[in-house]
């Protein structure tokens, strides 16, 4: 991909009057030496796998290795059956789908890393929930996923998307930024609105650490997927009415990278600090390792 910054992307989009997703698919075709149609087929494979993960996750209540997690989605479904979500059907589906996918992941089930496995519920939950509720056709969902992809890709040029390198801001945080961009694309927003949505979402998660309890992708990872799915919608709503981030997105990416460097190694997927060192976490650790 020859586009290394969001400024490059914006300029190309405005100069050539092309949507961001179109630039993404054309650049990918060029790089991978395949046709644009083949790129879209590969994206569709990812989208289909995302939908299967949601479907499997919604059905299962199998617990994870730890025995603590795996049935939160089921609890949510039961509540929604009796009483719909306060914020309506889209909210209901995003929270349920994000939990379903994240729980499927911790069972060592089949999911799509987007950008990582720990953050695998965010982009799919937003795309699939909104598509279902707003009757958005598959081809527009592919456009959304392509948009999400190029957003994550540009960030990854400056920051490795791994909790161990830059904390959760580089995983769930970037996923939320990608989902915000995808959502604006699916709702017919402009290039600037897409980039603003991505910027707003990213700015709000700076500093998010990666402190999983007992080193498992469970606490706080699973529920964070639901939170940051909804978070992406907030960013999209703001961007679609013309709210702008005062700090340009490329500079936010720089901050994300530097914040990752400044973050203590104790808070970067080592489980040596944060939630992982709370009294309760240490007790859980004792129980867990005794079982083994």
């Amino acid at each position, binding site marked *: 991909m*020859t586009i290394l910054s969001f400024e490059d992307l914006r300029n190309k989009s405005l100069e050539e009057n092309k949507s961001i997703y179109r630039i993404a698919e054309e650049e990918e075709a060029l*790089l991978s030496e395949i046709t644009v149609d083949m790129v879209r087929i590969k994206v569709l494979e990812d989208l289909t796998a995302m939908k299967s993960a949601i479907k499997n996750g919604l059905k299962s209540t199998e617990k994870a290795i730890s025995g603590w997690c795996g049935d939160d989605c089921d609890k949510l479904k039961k509540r929604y059956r009796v009483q719909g979500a306060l914020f309506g059907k889209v909210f209901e589906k995003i929270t349920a789908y994000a939990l379903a996918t994240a729980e499927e992941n911790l069972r*060592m089930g089949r999911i799509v890393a987007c950008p990582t496995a*720990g953050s695998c519920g965010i982009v799919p939950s937003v795309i699939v929930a909104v598509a279902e509720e707003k009757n958005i056709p598959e081809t527009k969902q592919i456009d959304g996923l392509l948009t999400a*992809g190029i957003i994550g890709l540009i960030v*990854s040029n400056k920051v490795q998307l791994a909790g161990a390198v830059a904390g959760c801001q580089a995983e769930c945080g970037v996923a939320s930024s990608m989902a915000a961009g995808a959502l604006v694309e699916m709702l017919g927003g402009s290039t600037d609105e897409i980039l603003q949505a991505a910027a707003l979402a990213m700015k709000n998660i700076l500093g998010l650490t990666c402190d*999983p309890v007992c*080193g498992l*992708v469970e606490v706080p990872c699973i529920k964070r997927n639901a939170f940051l799915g909804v978070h992406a919608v907030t960013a999209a709503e703001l961007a679609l009415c013309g709210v702008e981030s005062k700090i340009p997105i490329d500079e936010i990416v720089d901050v994300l990278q530097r914040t990752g460097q400044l973050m203590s190694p104790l808070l*970067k997927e080592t489980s040596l600090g944060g939630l992982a060192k709370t009294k309760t976490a240490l007790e859980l650790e004792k129980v867990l390792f005794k079982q083994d």
Partner: protein
Amino acid sequence: MEQKSLFSVISPIMVGPSSSHTAGAVRLGLMAKNIYKNKFSKVKFVLYNSFATTGFGHGTDKGLLAGLLGYSVDDSLIKDIFNIVHDVQYSYDYVQDISRHPNSVDIIIDDTMKISGDSVGAGEIRINNIDGFDVNIKGTYDTLLLMYKDKPGMISEVADIIQRQRINIATLHCGRNAKGGVASMCIELDIPAGDDIVNEIKKLNDVFFVTNVRKLK
């Protein structure tokens, strides 16, 4: 800056729970398999830093072994790999060493070859050392790997053999243990080098080892 694919961000389709600690581990194992090529009966994995502290909860141990045995990142058998494997002796060591990448591993196969690599995020990996020699294999290209006596003219001789087959060299990476000692060369190619190229390079004077490392799917 190196160009990356969109599918480095919205893939792989994989079994959970962690792209760096599970899929990355499987891919490191697969890459080691592609490098070692032979059957083996014994393997030791040395896990560093975050791989060591949180690897257990992410299935890193299972992923590394499954990869080395050829399972792909989305194979749902990975979670049961310890119940499946009986004919290979495997062990794990856990080490903290801040000079290494946060997600790093040494894979020691049959006490004969030591392959070191990192999981650099989103399932992407890098093999950076084989038997003490710096290499740079990311698994995104077919790579020709050779060890030879450090002396003038080797790069040009090898490049000439590749060029005659009209294969384009994407990247070239060299290292050595000492001047006039043993050197290594990693050549990423746009299309895989055939056995004819490997055999021709083998015939060059002072080439100790040459192999063709296939890229990951």
